[in-house]
């Protein structure tokens, strides 16, 4: 026992000593030479990752002679991050007792950095950006002036020759993170233009990286519309380029999430063709099937995709969803025996896959309708009628939409689903709307007056929520969203 303990302790001790020595060395080596941006960045990271803001500021003050402009900027940056940290960690005592001192120092140092640099210097742009961020955080009216100043600075910087274009992206990212979407787009476009016209080897990879960064992700700040613009630009300048599996999926997924289904569908097709063994294939085939059925109104192709999914991926949980959709389409088309066959296959496979709790109740309802010779459930039929007949081939309606808190879920995760319905202007007269929710609603049973509901799912498959909104004069519009439930 003693031996075992020492055999464990000794390597840990050695590794600790080694790590400590390495950290000291790294810090020491970065401290000894503070000439360029990278040196300061390394030093900042080593101090600030442990929230040693004041220590960092004190150290920089001692080194002011080495590079006064960068020192001033990093003092200001440290104070800005310190104020943000104090606010996030709710250390209000220090925030309120010392905050004003930090703010004064920040302003003084950032102005110093601006005075010591010129418009074509990256540091000048960084300092201007910090000045705006600070005033934005403070929620003061002057923030608008600082924003205009920053935008003008970036334009002038980008007009100068031989520049580091990553500085432009830095500002665009900052603006995007602060929710300045319009202004961030302007700056991203400048960056995109510069990147496209550059002849550097890493141009394509930088474009892909930008598109990925801005593609849709739950809970993240993104700009999916611009991400697609970047993908299009990439295709334009490098038509022979094949995106890797992840990126190709991301492009299709990004378009799907902004409900540009007619654009997403061909991207999923490319994914399935280029990467037939991809882990995303079953999801892509299922979504393509439903897009064909409910958006393009192309039932035969939809059936083909769903059958292909069942044949090629018999162990995928998505085949349960595919069986259900095939049964539903058959039932809707009046092919009752085929519908029963699909529902039976779903139930047979349910034991094998043990992941179809969400579908059992739906299938039982459908089989009961068949047995009692009843029509399809009203909401479901309304959606299918509208999407497959009335709205077939026409543009996806913009006046009805479905919002969800998150598109990627884990089983049992509660998600809020809400509708957006934009009826015609009616002045002070309130229009009564009916919300016909259908599809995979999980454990929720929203009524026709419910414009939103919360639900959760048990099985890890792709879910589809459908909605038709009715006004007293008829159908206002319909919408559909996919939710991906995975472990």
């Amino acid at each position, binding site marked *: 026992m003693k031996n075992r303990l020492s055999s464990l302790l000794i390597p840990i001790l050695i590794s600790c000593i080694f790590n400590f020595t390495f950290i000291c060395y790294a810090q020491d080596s970065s401290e000894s030479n503070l000439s360029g941006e990278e040196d300061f960045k390394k030093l900042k990271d080593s101090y600030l990752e442990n929230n040693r803001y004041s220590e960092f500021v004190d150290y920089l003050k001692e080194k002011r002679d080495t590079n006064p402009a960068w020192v001033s900027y990093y003092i200001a940056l440290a104070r800005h991050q310190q104020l943000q940290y104090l606010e996030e960690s*709710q250390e209000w*005592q220090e925030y*309120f007792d010392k905050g004003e001192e930090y703010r004064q120092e920040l302003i003084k140092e950032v102005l110093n950095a601006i005075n010591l640099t010129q418009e074509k210097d990256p540091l000048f742009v960084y300092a201007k950006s910090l000045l705006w961020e600070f005033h934005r955080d403070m*929620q*003061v009216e002057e923030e608008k002036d600082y924003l205009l100043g920053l935008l003008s600075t970036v334009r002038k910087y980008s007009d100068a020759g031989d520049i580091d274009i990553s500085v432009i992206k830095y500002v665009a990212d900052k603006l995007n993170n602060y929710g300045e979407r319009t202004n961030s787009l302007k700056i991203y476009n400048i960056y995109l233009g510069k990147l496209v016209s550059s002849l550097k080897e890493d141009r394509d990879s930088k474009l892909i990286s930008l598109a990925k960064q801005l593609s849709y992700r739950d809970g993240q700040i993104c700009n999916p519309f611009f991400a697609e613009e970047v993908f299009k630009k990439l295709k334009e300048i490098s038509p022979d380029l094949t995106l890797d599996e992840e990126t190709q999926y991301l492009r299709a997924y990004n378009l799907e999430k902004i409900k540009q289904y007619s654009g997403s569908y061909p991207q999923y097709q490319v994914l399935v063709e280029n990467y037939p063994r991809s882990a995303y294939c079953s999801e892509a085939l299922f979504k393509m099937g439903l897009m064909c059925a409910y958006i393009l109104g192309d039932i035969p192709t939809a059936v083909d995709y769903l059958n292909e999914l069942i044949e090629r991926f018999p162990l995928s949980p998505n085949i349960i969803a595919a069986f259900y959709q095939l049964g539903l389409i058959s039932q809707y088309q009046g092919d009752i025996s085929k519908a029963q066959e699909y529902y039976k296959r779903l139930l047979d496979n349910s034991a094998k896959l043990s992941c179809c709790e969400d579908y059992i109740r739906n299938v039982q309802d459908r089989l009961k309708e068949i047995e009692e010779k009843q029509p399809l459930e009203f909401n479901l039929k309304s959606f299918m009628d509208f999407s497959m007949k009335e709205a077939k081939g026409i543009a996806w309606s913009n006046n009805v939409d479905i919002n969800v808190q998150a598109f990627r879920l884990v089983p049992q995760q509660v998600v809020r689903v809400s509708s957006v319905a934009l009826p015609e202007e009616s002045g002070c007269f309130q229009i009564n709307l009916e919300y016909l929710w259908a599809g995979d609603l999980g454990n929720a049973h929203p009524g026709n007056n419910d414009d939103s509901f919360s639900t959760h799912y048990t099985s890890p498959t792709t879910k589809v929520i459908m909605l038709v909104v009715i006004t007293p004069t008829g159908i206002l519009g319909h919408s559909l969203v996919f939710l991906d439930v995975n472990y």
Partner: protein
Amino acid sequence: MKLNTNKSRFREESRRHKRERFLFVVSCFLLLFVSMFLVGLSKQTRQAVYIKKYKDGGYELFVNQRPYIIKGVCYNPVAVGKNHEYDLFSDPNKPWILDGKLMQEMGINTVRFYKVDSEPEKVREVIGDLYQRYGIRSILGHWLGFWEYPCPRYGDEDFRKKIRDEVIQMVNLYKDEEGVLFWVLGNENNYSFSGQVNPWSNEEIDKEVNPSKQREMRAKIYYSFVNELAREIHKLDPNHPVALGNGELVGLEFANDLCPDIDLVACIIYRGKTFGNLFKSLKMTFDRPLVITEFGADSFDAYKDSEDQHMQAFFLESQWRQIYQNLYGDKDGAENCLGGTIFEWTDEWWKHNECYQEAWSVHDNGAGWSNGSYYFDIKAEGNLNMNEEWFGIVSLSEELENGINKRIPKKSYYVLREFWKNPVGKEKMKYKKSR
């Protein structure tokens, strides 16, 4: 000769000097005596706490001859794991000593106690400690039997007598305590007039079929009763004003005729960022000075399901700004506000699931009611956005320090501390204002 003349002149002058000195000393003593007499006289004729009404219709509160702005909190710091039966006054750990210090550092000068039905000596100790140690005065309240089972029977003479005795006892017990500021009768008892909250009735009301008339009858019975109490309190204690506790301004149109002995109105107001037309509306309905004895915001975003101290600080700062705009001296305001007591000092962990003892030790995120004026989280499910357990400007921790739940001041504590340092608001706020 010349020398003699000089000598006699010198003697004469020295005598005159002595006489003058004597007269000066006597007149100084006289002046001192007169001023001491006058001060004593004024102390006898002036209340320790009184409200001055100015010719222009404004009101100002005075304490010991000095203007007093009520910068207060509702003080009911129920310990984690306890419920409404928790008796602060009997708490051997004396949390008011710790709280008083924190309050003083923040700038709070007043606490409001909803009820003081504990042992008198213990109540005196708390009031005394808060005042002697920290200069914090106490507003003492009485529920007027609003929560009596099965209902408050204001139309019943026996019930009224019982309540009257309790109120008189409270006044007799504490009227001579130096730290007492004023008395508050009732809280939101007027919400019972409609019959929807704690409904009460009598034979006469039962005979009336018109609900609007029933409401009026209840209001008249209740406000007459409160006025009787106020009159009796004034007889016993001329040194402290009597406030009528009221939910919003509901029913005060009846109080205007029935409550001449009420000195001020203590309103409970939850209107979000501003109090709207409250101050001017009160002037038109029942012209009395106003203390907002319950207002504030919770620090939990029911929509995002996470704590949001910025939201609370944002609302509270805005509310205090409006209180200051309606104090005496600000000609743009109604000049009828005397200050306010924020709801409340600490969070109360027992409130959401009060029937389950286990839940008293859990800081529950559940929201119990809806109020669209608190708009940041009104999109929460069922529009339930008011998180009753999160109204404190100080958080409680389960961790104990000297037997007391550790206090962690929230952002609003510091925001108001800074606001009270410069309440005029002409200087820019030095911190992030909102979310």
